[in-house]
Structure formats: structure tokens, C-alpha cells
């Protein structure tokens, strides 16, 4: 177990900059997620920590030691891939024991450790099978067992759940998190799936186009996004053109065409700066629909996406399209109906226009 630190790490492939000077700390024993769309540089960061890529400049430290020039096989890392990468010509037992061979583990000890690892991933007794005889979910568990059996300093997970089907993916993410909690290994998890990131992480690093947009706990990045990009990438957000009309010790008052004056708590306006132009972010689930005539702004329902216990509404207020997600209490509102829209200003956030300030 060890702390991982990136100090102004930059990676360039030919003329393409994959990572612009990143400064990141992965705390000891924590589960940190690199989240972003494909091509944002998250996998490149993971590959640089693993040693599969070399940074163009900057330093990478594991447990306080600079490891830029340490080859991958001497870094003591556990690596789990999207496609499992189990050696097809070896049995499950041989796959798991592979890393132990290079660690002076006595034969008897080896068998015990393999059994133990299989118990941890809840697949006991499959030592003698070949990878192709297991299902995708089982193969990924074996890949995890193979990575943790060597007691790595850092566990690197490169979209390990993406190849699994939806139900299995949710089951596996709970299990993966449980195992990580239990063994307490510093873990770096790469994904483009925001729900995985929110559900599993101690800390999320949101990336876009080779830059880090925001670092924070799942609640922080969800409730107080630092930029329009973060707001849009996690969950469904409405971003409204706004003007700052007043600032005091506790609130920033924004004015929008749709909702008039909205006092946003200062803690939800951390990246706003001194600009007078802003964006007001309202989460879709924080916009509440009421029957026509009740308190709120009049809006017209344009379409309804019925999802069982939830309904997603596509609304129009003046020229603006909004999205709202409400629990269905009784019957959902229908398309064409006029409703009253209300929201709690404390659940809103004020963002700078465009990129981070």
C-alpha cells in the first residue's frame, strides 16, 4: 500500500498532447476514480503510473519514491484490464500464481495464497479450469484475484467493468468495492461511466481533453461542479444563462430569465470568480413539477420519458428547454400539459461560463 503522486506530469504522443501537466495525489488506501469521456487522458495517466507509458515530463512517485525510470515489472502493481487478459494457455491456478513465481514464494505457500485469493473473489475450486471455461464476470474476478494475490502497492483498474453486461456490472462494482475496502489497497480506477464513479469512489478526478476539470468526493463533484463540463458529464443538469446581481457574505444572487432571482450559497459558487456572467446549474431531479396554478414558474411539458418509478420530463419555459426528473406520485403529467415548476435555490450551483476560471 502506498500513496501515489503525480507532479506536473505531461504526456505527448507526437504532436498530440494526451495529458497537460497533471498534479494529482492518490491517498494511501483510497479508491480514486479517473472519470471522463474517451480520449480525455484518463487511461494515459493510469498507463503512466503502471509504467506502460513514460511521461514526457514530470515525476511520478509511489510511496515517496520517484519511479519514472523503474520498469513496470519492478513496480509491484496490480493491473486489471477491460478484457481480463487472463493467459488463455494457463489454468486459473497458474494464472493467479503467475505473479508469485517472481516473488520467491515457496511452493506450499503459493497454493495457499491462490486458494485464499479465490476465496476473496468468491470463486473457490476453479484452479484447474481454463479461462475460456468461465463466464466474463468470473474471468474478471480471476483477473482481480491475480492482481491482488501479489499484495501490490497500488491496484490499477482500467475500465474493468465495461465488458460486462448491465446487471453483472452493478453486482461486480459492489463486490469490487467491498474487496478493496477489505484489503485496503490504494486503488486507481478508470471509467467513463459516471454512475460507477459516483458509487465506488472516495475521490473522483474528472478529466476532459487532457486536463483535470475537478477533484473531489462524489458529493462534491455532483452537487458543486467546478465547470459546465463537469455539470453536464455527471447526471442530468440544466444550465441557464445568468447574471450576477448581488454578492453578500453567504450568497451570490443570480438572475435568470426563467426563474428570476436565485440566491445560491457561496459554497456552491466556489469557481465563479468575479465575473458578472454566470451559469445557473439546476439538477434535473431538483426541479419539481406541480399542478397548474400551484407555486412556481409556468412550464409546458413537451415530452415524457416514462421509467417506472421515475419520469423524465422535457419542458419548455419561454425559449428554454429544461429537463426534470421526478418520482411518480400517482399519475405522471402528460405531454402538452402546463405545470408549475419550482426548485430549491440551495440545491443550485453557480458556474463560470465556459471552462474553469
Amino acid at each position, binding site marked *: 500500500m502506498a500513496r501515489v503522486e503525480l507532479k506536473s506530469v505531461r504526456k505527448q504522443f507526437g504532436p498530440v498532447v494526451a495529458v497537460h501537466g497533471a498534479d494529482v495525489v492518490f491517498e494511501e488506501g483510497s479508491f480514486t476514480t479517473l472519470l471522463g469521456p474517451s480520449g480525455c487522458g484518463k487511461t494515459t495517466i493510469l498507463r503512466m503510473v*503502471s509504467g*506502460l507509458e513514460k511521461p514526457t515530463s514530470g515525476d511520478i512517485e509511489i510511496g515517496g519514491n520517484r519511479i519514472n525510470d523503474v520498469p*513496470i515489472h519492478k513496480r509491484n502493481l496490480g*493491473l486489471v484490464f477491460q*478484457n481480463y*487478459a487472463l493467459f488463455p494457455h494457463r489454468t486459473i491456478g497458474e494464472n493467479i500464481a*503467475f*505473479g508469485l513465481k517472481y516473488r520467491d514464494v515457496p511452493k506450499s505457500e503459493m497454493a495457499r495464497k491462490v486458494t485464499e485469493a479465490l476465496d476473496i473473489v468468491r470463486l473457490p475450486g476453479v484452479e484447474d479450469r*481454463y479461462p475460456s471455461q468461465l463466464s466474463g464476470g468470473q474471468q474478471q474476478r480471476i483477473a482481480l484475484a491475480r492482481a491482488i494475490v*501479489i499484495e501490490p502497492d497500488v491496484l490499477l483498474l482500467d475500465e474493468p467493468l465495461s465488458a460486462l453486461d448491465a446487471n453483472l456490472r452493478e453486482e461486480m462494482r459492489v463486490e469490487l468495492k467491498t474487496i478493496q475496502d477489505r484489503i485496503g489497497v490504494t486503488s486507481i480506477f478508470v471509467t467513463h461511466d459516471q454512475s460507477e464513479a459516483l458509487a465506488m469512489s472516495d475521490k473522483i478526478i474528472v478529466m476532459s481533453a487532457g486536463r483535470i476539470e475537478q477533484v473531489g468526493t462524489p458529493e462534491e463533484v455532483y452537487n458543486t461542479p467546478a465547470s459546465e463540463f463537469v455539470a453536464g458529464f455527471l447526471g442530468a443538469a440544466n444550465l441557464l444563462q445568468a447574471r450576477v446581481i448581488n454578492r453578500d457574505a453567504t450568497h451570490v444572487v443570480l438572475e435568470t430569465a426563467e426563474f428570476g432571482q436565485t440566491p445560491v450559497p457561496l459554497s456552491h459558487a466556489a469557481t465563479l470568480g468575479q465575473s458578472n456572467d454566470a451559469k445557473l446549474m439546476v439538477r434535473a431531479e431538483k426541479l419539481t413539477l406541480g399542478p397548474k396554478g400551484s407555486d412556481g414558474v409556468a412550464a409546458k411539458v413537451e415530452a415524457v420519458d416514462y421509467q417506472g418509478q421515475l419520469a423524465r420530463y422535457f419542458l419548455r419555459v419561454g425559449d428554454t428547454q429544461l429537463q426534470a426528473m421526478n418520482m411518480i406520485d400517482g399519475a405522471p403529467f402528460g405531454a402538452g400539459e402546463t405545470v408549475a415548476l419550482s426548485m430549491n435555490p440551495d440545491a443550485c450551483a453557480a458556474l463560470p461560463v465556459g471552462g474553469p476560471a
Partner: protein
Amino acid sequence: MSSRVWRLLKTYTVLVYGFMFAPIVVVLILAFNNSQFGGFPIEGFSLRWFYELAENEAIIRALRTSVTLGMLTALIATTLGVLASMALVRYQFRGKQWITTFLISPVLVPETVLAVGLLIFLRWLHMPRSFGLLLIGHSIIALPFVVLVVQARLIGIRRDYEEAARSLGASPVQTFFQITLPLLMPAVFAGALFAFTISFDNITATIFWRPSGMETVPTQIFGMLRNSVSPEINALGFVMICITVGLPLLAGGLARYFSRRKV
């Protein structure tokens, strides 16, 4: 298409294959003909030409030369081919395109030109023709086939197997022998078989390169044909067909057997 056209097409196809395989079938049949001359009519079934073949020292010597040459060619071409493929598929370096073209070029260059070229080069170095020269030549001719087969397979082997092995503590060399080579084995085997067969069958270049007094099976047959068509040649043809056709079939069967056992 009308059924008449179909029938025509079928007949034509059968005829083409017939013309291609008839001579081989003739050789196979005549090898067992108990006649003084290497031709029709059939005078009865006999293994007598095989016995004569086994006692013909020149042929046995040629066969030994051919087999040794073929096996060494397979060894050299396969080793070089695997290393070259690793470099070409797994690493980036300058002039990669040129090296690929260069390695494949012996397939494109007419064999006679290649043969004369190597001979002139050796003359220039003041080296006499030798078994070594023959071996180098055959390896050059066989190398492209090995590279093509191994490269195709290597591209299909995902890199993350190797990356996983490295992350678990295997050095690059250990990773190659533990992971890459075993996964590559079917192609290595196929490449080696190709190389052996190509060397075993080769006559054009061999005639240029062999030192005087040394015969391979094809040059031996060629030499024997200049005098007369001996029925022994039919028997020898039978043996050669068995080796060049039987070996790959056997290998394919074995490969299938082993892969079935594993899955």
C-alpha cells in the same frame, strides 16, 4: 444463372483440378507398377521400386542432405522470422516499412535472380559454394513465409496479455517465453513446416548454390531424369509427396487435437 451455365462451370472446374492432379495420381500409381519402365501399362502391383530406392545410395544420401537442410532451414528461418515479427509488430522504429519490404522481397524477386545474386556476392567475398551457402540461401527464401504467418498471428494476440505478465513481475524476456511464444506456437509451427517444405522442394536456386558433388532430392531426381525415366523416380515421387503433403496434414491434426483438449 441458368442451370446449363452452372453445369458448364462445374465441368470446367472439375477439368482444371483433374489436369492439376492427374500427373500426381499417375506418379502415385506408377510407383507400385511392377514394370521395367517408368510408364504404362500396369503390369502388376509391387513394392520392388521402393526396395531398390532404399538400396540406391545416391538417393539415400540426397534424402539425408535434403532432410538435414530442410530442418536447419526451418530452424534458422523460424527463429529469425519470430524475432523479426516481434520487432515489426510490437515495436516502433524508423525504417520499419523498408525492413518489412526487404524481408518479404525474396518472394517477389525471381528465384533465378536471387540465386545468381547470392552467388556473385559470395564470389566477391571469395567464398566457395558450400552447404552453408545453400543453407543461407534456403533460409532467405523461406523467411518471408515465416514472417507473414507469424506476423498475422502476433497481430491477433492482444498486447494486454504481455502487459499483464509484465505488471505481475515478468521481465521482457520472461514475458516472451512464458506468454508470447506459447500463444504464438501454432504460427511458429506452421512457419517451420512451411520453411521445411519450401527447402525440401526447392530446385531452381539449389542448382545454382549446391557445391559440386552434393545432391538434394530434387536435384538428384533431375539428374536421374537426364538419362532415362527410371521407375525408381516414381517411388521417390511417392515418398516426397508423402513428406510434403503428409507432414502439414499431421501437424494440422495434432494442433486440432491439442486445442480441443484445452478448451
